[in-house]
């Protein structure tokens, strides 16, 4: 029963995880496991799909590195339970991504972290949905990723979520009266946020005075876009994009002597970590992000220090997302084991595991504290509930708002 | 027809020239008047007038760079003339391109050989036969009987034409690996295959030794006789020119300096001075 055959229906075809099903499936598997000690055992085959080469390699590699840290921690901590981790490259391409997915299937994957980028994720989640393989994407944020697919969950905010949250935030805090938007026209992530932002902004009465775009081939010079914003008198420029082009926008605005408030989204995180970047350019930039590498809570400190030791660089949000994904899967299985008298994942079919994970993630009693958010919970349609944190960059570091 | 070109009798035509008496009932295949072309500052051809009878063999000679090849390029519409008129078989060629000129009945060979290198000898000839092959793309793609019939006909016709130069046994050879002389002959066959009314040959004997040249001479005559077409040729080999051309035009610096049968041309002092030089070698 694949979800996408009934296109058009808003709700999930299979209302996930009622308490009934929890107990049902729970007792069954518990019986099969013949253990009653509530312990999680066995080796779980976890796959990851993301761009490890090509233009988007940056994001895939970050996730990969983050997951590796988490897997090491998990494997060190829980002796009887191990994660066997297998990352696969998809070059940010739907076709390659499906190939990678099929490779993972041949390998015997039981759960998938990914895919990292949006378009490939839509293609793969449709496949995984009909194969009943659980997916938790660290960063593919479009609504289409989870739409009509009950086994695909997001760890990151969804685009609509981010877009409207940003508009809301700007309006509530009266950050600006006139807003300009620069977005990347050939990018699903960027346009996705832009569209919901615009709709929400209209609702809230924010005055969007300029909307300009750029593309892959013309992502170096932003004079026109910035001039348009400036001429329209925008006092806030909304930048729903990843941090690489954003860093150029900041430096060019600076050169023009244009200093509005720059407002970014989660993709902006990482800008301070660019090697050699003059952080003073980012002074005053506000961004909504669930992760700040210099946060002082134990989880973050632990993750960041391990990451820096392993890779010699500060983790960006994608790395944190990857880290949390592995942790969420682990936490969910542990949760299940504890509540159902144990669980041995060895040789368990992907679809059984998928049912378990869906059950747990949609269980309101289940929540996870991660580096990208406290008390993360998931709604039935696969979206995460966590509080976006408003951050402002001051003196080269994030400061919570 | 006479074998000694000097014996051909000529009659005047209304246009700018003379044609052989035997062709007087047919209209000249080619008439050009006041033809000229400039390249930038250089006037390569000027005041060029000619009339070729339906079965005449004409010659065009002159020093290097006199404009002979340029005249061919004008007649075949490779260059559009700066001035003048070209009538092909009674049709004004104004506004025609090379393809249309060929379809109107003029075919040529090139001074620098231009074969379809990657195609075989037979295929080269079949390109010449192109417009006489009577099927269209759908019958080819669907391989209708019509396709097979017409291809068979074309194949046989190609071999027949190649046989003129005894080249039928080379039909399968890639044209680029032919020796120089054979390439020249293949060009002639290809031009002939288009079914022209007049054939222009640009230095057909270049790179051939005297015996080969003699054979070529016979073949040109044979072509004229079997196909009943006119031939106009450029050549620096005087044995060939004087041997078969009934009427010769001499160009120098783009202008005609002499016209007439081989005997008069050979003895024209202007031609001797500009072109032939002292005739010691012969």
């Amino acid at each position, binding site marked *: 029963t694949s979800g996408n055959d009934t296109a058009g229906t808003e709700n999930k075809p299979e209302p996930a995880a009622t308490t009934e099903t929890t107990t049902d499936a729970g007792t069954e598997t518990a019986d099969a496991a013949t253990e009653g000690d509530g312990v999680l055992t066995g080796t779980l085959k976890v796959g990851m799909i993301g761009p490890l080469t090509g233009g988007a390699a940056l994001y895939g590699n970050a996730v990969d590195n983050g997951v590796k840290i988490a897997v090491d921690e998990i494997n060190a901590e829980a002796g009887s339970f191990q994660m066997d981790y297998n990352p696969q490259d998809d070059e940010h391409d739907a076709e390659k991504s499906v190939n990678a997915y099929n490779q993972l299937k041949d390998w015997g994957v039981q759960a998938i972290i990914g895919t990292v980028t949006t378009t490939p994720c839509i293609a793969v989640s449709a496949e995984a949905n009909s194969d009943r393989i659980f997916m938790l994407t660290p960063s593919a944020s479009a609504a289409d990723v989870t739409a009509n697919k009950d086994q695909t969950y997001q760890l990151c905010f969804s685009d609509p979520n981010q877009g409207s949250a940003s508009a809301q935030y700007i309006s509530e805090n009266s950050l600006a009266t006139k807003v300009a938007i620069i977005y990347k026209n050939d990018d699903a992530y960027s346009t996705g946020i832009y569209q919901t932002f615009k709709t929400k902004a209209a609702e809230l009465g924010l005055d969007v005075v300029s909307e300009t775009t750029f593309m892959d081939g*013309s992502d170096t*010079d932003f004079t*026109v876009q910035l001039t348009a914003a400036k001429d329209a008198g925008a006092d806030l420029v909304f930048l729903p994009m990843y941090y*690489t082009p954003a860093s150029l926008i900041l430096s060019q605005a600076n*050169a023009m002597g244009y200093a509005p408030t720059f407002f970014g989204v989660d993709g902006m995180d990482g800008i301070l970590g660019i*090697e050699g970047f003059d952080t003073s350019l980012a002074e005053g930039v506000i961004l909504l992000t669930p992760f700040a590498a210099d946060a002082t809570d134990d989880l973050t400190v632990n993750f960041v220090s391990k990451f820096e030791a392993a890779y010699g*660089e500060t983790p960006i949000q994608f790395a944190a997302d990857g880290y949390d994904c592995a942790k969420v899967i682990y936490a969910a299985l542990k949760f299940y084991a504890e509540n159902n008298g144990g669980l041995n994942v060895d040789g368990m079919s992907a679809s059984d595991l998928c049912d378990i994970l869906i059950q747990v993630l949609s269980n309101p009693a289940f929540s996870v504290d991660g580096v990208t958010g406290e008390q993360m919970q998931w709604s039935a349609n696969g979206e995460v509930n966590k509080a976006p944190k408003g951050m402002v960059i001051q003196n080269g570091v994030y400061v919570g708002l | 027809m006479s074998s000694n070109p000097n014996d051909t009798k000529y009659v005047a035509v209304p246009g700018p020239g003379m044609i052989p008496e035997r062709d007087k009932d047919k209209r000249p295949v080619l008439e050009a008047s006041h033809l000229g072309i400039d390249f930038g500052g250089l006037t390569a051809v000027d005041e060029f007038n000619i009339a070729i009878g339906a079965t005449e063999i004409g010659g065009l000679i002159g020093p290097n760079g006199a404009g002979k090849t340029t005249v061919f390029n004008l007649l075949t519409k490779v260059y559009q003339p700066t001035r003048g008129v070209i009538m092909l078989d009674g049709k004004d060629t104004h506004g025609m391109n090379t393809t249309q000129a060929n379809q109107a009945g003029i075919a040529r060979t090139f001074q620098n050989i231009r074969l379809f290198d990657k195609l075989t000898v037979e295929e080269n000839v079949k390109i010449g036969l192109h417009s006489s092959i009577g099927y269209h793309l759908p019958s080819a793609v669907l391989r209708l009987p019509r396709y097979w019939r017409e291809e068979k006909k074309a194949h046989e016709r190609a071999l027949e034409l190649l046989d003129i130069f005894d080249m039928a046994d080379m039909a399968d050879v890639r044209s680029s690996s032919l020796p120089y002389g054979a390439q020249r002959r293949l060009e002639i066959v290809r031009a002939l295959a288009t079914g022209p009314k007049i054939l222009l040959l640009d230095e057909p004997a270049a790179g051939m030794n005297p015996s080969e040249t003699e054979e070529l001479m016979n073949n040109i005559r044979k072509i004229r006789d079997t196909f009943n077409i006119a031939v106009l040729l450029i050549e620096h080999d005087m044995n060939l020119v004087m041997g078969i051309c009934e009427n010769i035009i001499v160009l120098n610096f783009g202008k005609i300096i002499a016209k007439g049968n081989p005997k008069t041309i050979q003895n024209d002092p202007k031609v001797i001075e500009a072109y032939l030089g002292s005739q010691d070698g012969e």
Partner: protein
Amino acid sequence: MLNYLISGISLGSVYAIIALGYTMVYGIAKMLNFAHGDIIMVGGYAAFCAGTYLGWPVPLAILFSMMICTILGIVIEKLAYKPLRNATSLAVLITAIGVSYLLQNLALLIWTSNPKAFPNMVNFIPSIVLGKNSDNPITISSATIVTIAASIIIMVALTLFTGKTKMGKAMRAVSEDKGAAQLMGINVNATISVTFAIGSGLAAIAGVLLCSAYPTLMPTTGSMPGIKAFTAAVLGGIGSIPGAMLGGILLGILEKFAQAYISTQLSDAIVFAALIVVLLVKPTGLLGKKMTEKV
């Protein structure tokens, strides 16, 4: 308006300087060296490493980058292109694409996918501010000034080199007929190596200037500007050195004007459509010589 013109020229001058290298290699080796953009990227990284990691002074870092690229160009030519000397130009084109993948993926392994912020290496020249006291002062950045100056110098130097020097003429002879060139006593392999050495050395300069103007450096940094510069070279008439310069600048201006006055969404489509129109009117590009093929 003036503002857009200037940003167009800034962008265009970067295209121009890349296009010069493209055209140089194309003009002589008669090959579209699609790896050119990636050599630019390597040039950027080399200068970055020398300047940032080794702390070398700017001129030394640029020289180092040029040296690395020149050697790289020669090595690539020897290993990848020379064995294909008698192959079709398409075979060489595909090999160049292979080289491009190779360089990008090597860079990915060596320098990782994280972007580096490239320091402005040319700020020894002050930027010019027009209309300082008006509402809209217009800045011409140091990178732009240097890029324009460098591309003009390179254009003149290359024109003189290929047109006047013995080596330059030999290069043109080689590009036309390698066999006949050998009959003149010209060492064809050496000549082509020199061509690649020059082209790659120019790529290093282009890399430094590209990254100084638009300071993010990633393994894929060179590929899109490479394609744009190739377009510019064609616009100007590929093989023509002043054409590359003109094509580059025009393309930059066109791109900016299309963005400013028509649509930022469709600017690429507009730029490429304009290119098609230009080629329709002038099939050999703006300054391209008509290939005279005498019949």
